């Protein structure tokens, strides 16, 4: 089952839904009820589920089962007797002590600084100061050049860092969703969601995740023998970063200039999008350009 955030407005009281829609949405809802019970959902989604529970006895019973079992398991854990690990600890210490020196980790050495080192450090500081002055003097043109090319760094944009980490986690396991879950993903998002359509790019799977505490849609495409992911997310997340805002204003995109994975962010009519893949930045830009027509 794909993990999906759900627009529950169709299930709130007074609004009709077909039996088939209700059944499909209950299946999705079931995957969220543990997170709801454990307080792990964003406030908006929690409120939607609160409203749904008012009118759904089945889900109320499900929440009760989740709550009862979770609490009982935690009680058993809290009352479990302390484990005596003194023997295990001794055996572990002996095994660590027996490791040959060649297997020791590199330890950061404590450095003693003789006088000539201090002189070198001072010379280095002066050189850095001169460089900084030069940089400041040319900063305007550099910044303009940087944003004109639309390059940003993952380190300077928290959203891109979060996307890169989610990408890495996704690539290290099975893809969560399936392409035929597209309608459910569309219904679950508060903004329009449409996959890219371009020759050579085939949609394999789609699911939802959380970025910046808000729901986001994810598309997994096959591109030749690689997988690229596209995240569609709330526009306020995209426009939060000053570097991204400057890049978008100057060139319509914000892309990483080097390193892997490559990322490109751009604005959609009512949302934001980030494309990420284990390819060169230039290759990803080419794909983005063909997909968006820019």
């Amino acid at each position, binding site marked *: 089952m794909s993990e999906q955030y759900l627009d529950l407005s169709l299930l709130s009281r007074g609004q009709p839904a077909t039996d088939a829609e209700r059944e499909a949405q209950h299946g999705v809802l079931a995957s969220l009820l*543990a997170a709801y019970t454990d307080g792990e959902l964003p406030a908006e989604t929690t409120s939607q589920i609160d409203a749904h529970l008012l009118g759904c006895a089945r889900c109320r019973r499900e929440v009760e089962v989740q709550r009862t079992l979770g609490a009982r398991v935690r009680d058993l854990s809290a009352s479990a007797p*302390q*484990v005596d690990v003194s023997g295990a600890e001794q055996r*572990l210490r002996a095994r660590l002590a027996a490791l040959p020196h060649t*297997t020791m980790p590199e330890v*950061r050495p*404590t450095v003693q600084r003789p006088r000539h080192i201090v002189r070198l450090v001072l010379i280095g500081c002066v050189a850095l100061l001169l460089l900084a002055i030069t940089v400041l003097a040319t900063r305007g043109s550099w910044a303009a050049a940087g944003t004109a090319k639309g390059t940003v760094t993952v380190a300077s944009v928290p959203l891109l860092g979060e996307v890169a980490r989610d990408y890495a*986690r996704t690539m290290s396991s099975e893809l969560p969703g399936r392409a035929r879950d597209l309608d459910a993903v569309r219904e679950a998002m508060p903004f329009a969601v449409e996959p890219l359509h371009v020759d050579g790019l085939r949609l394999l799977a789609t699911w939802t995740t959380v970025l910046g505490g808000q729901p986001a849609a994810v598309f997994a495409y096959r591109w030749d023998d690689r997988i690229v992911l596209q995240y569609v997310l709330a526009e306020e997340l995209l426009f939060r970063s000053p570097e991204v805002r400057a890049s978008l204003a100057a060139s319509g995109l914000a892309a990483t200039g080097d390193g892997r994975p490559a990322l490109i962010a751009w604005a959609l009519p009512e949302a934001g999008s980030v494309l990420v893949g284990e390819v060169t930045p230039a290759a990803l830009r080419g794909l983005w350009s063909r997909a968006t027509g820019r």
Partner: protein
Amino acid sequence: MTSPADSSLAAEHARFDALVLPNLASLLRFAERRLASDGDAEDLVQEACIRAWLAFAELRDESKVKPWLFRILRSVMCDAAEKQGRRRQLVSITRLDDVHESLVGGEADVVFSEVAARLDAELLQRALSMIPEDFAVAVELHDLEGFKYQEIADIVGAPLGTVMSRMSRGRRMLAATIVEHRKAWALGGSTDDVTATRRRGAWGSA
């Protein structure tokens, strides 16, 4: 005379001991729940601690040492399971889905809170061993070890949404397993039991 390198190494040893050893009990409990033999569990925990020692410089945030250690242990256990081709006898998932469906559909003759209240640690362990590992691990890491969902996602290397789904489904299968075996495990909790208890209470108070 102690060389600077030896002093640094001793300091790293002390830091490792201070951060890792307090988590040894949790690591052993987790491994013992997953494996048939306590001896195997200790071997794998030792292996994980050695890997942790060799990768100690990669631990940037000491407050995250516990999920870091569990991620390493999980990796060690997966490597060992692959080599040994370990298989466990699992209850049919379809059967569990049916039992759970009757539980939340209001058709079951069982009062789940009564059954759960009689569950002890040994029966819980037995029930956890009967559901698929990915789901059991999610429930254990949250309900037994106290990790948050995002930490569990980092430990098992899965997206957050997958962890949410596994938690929901894992608890559902666990509940169904417990209900399915309640008679064999003498957990009682049928609606007949509840009715009989209330009736005795009414006679007793008459």
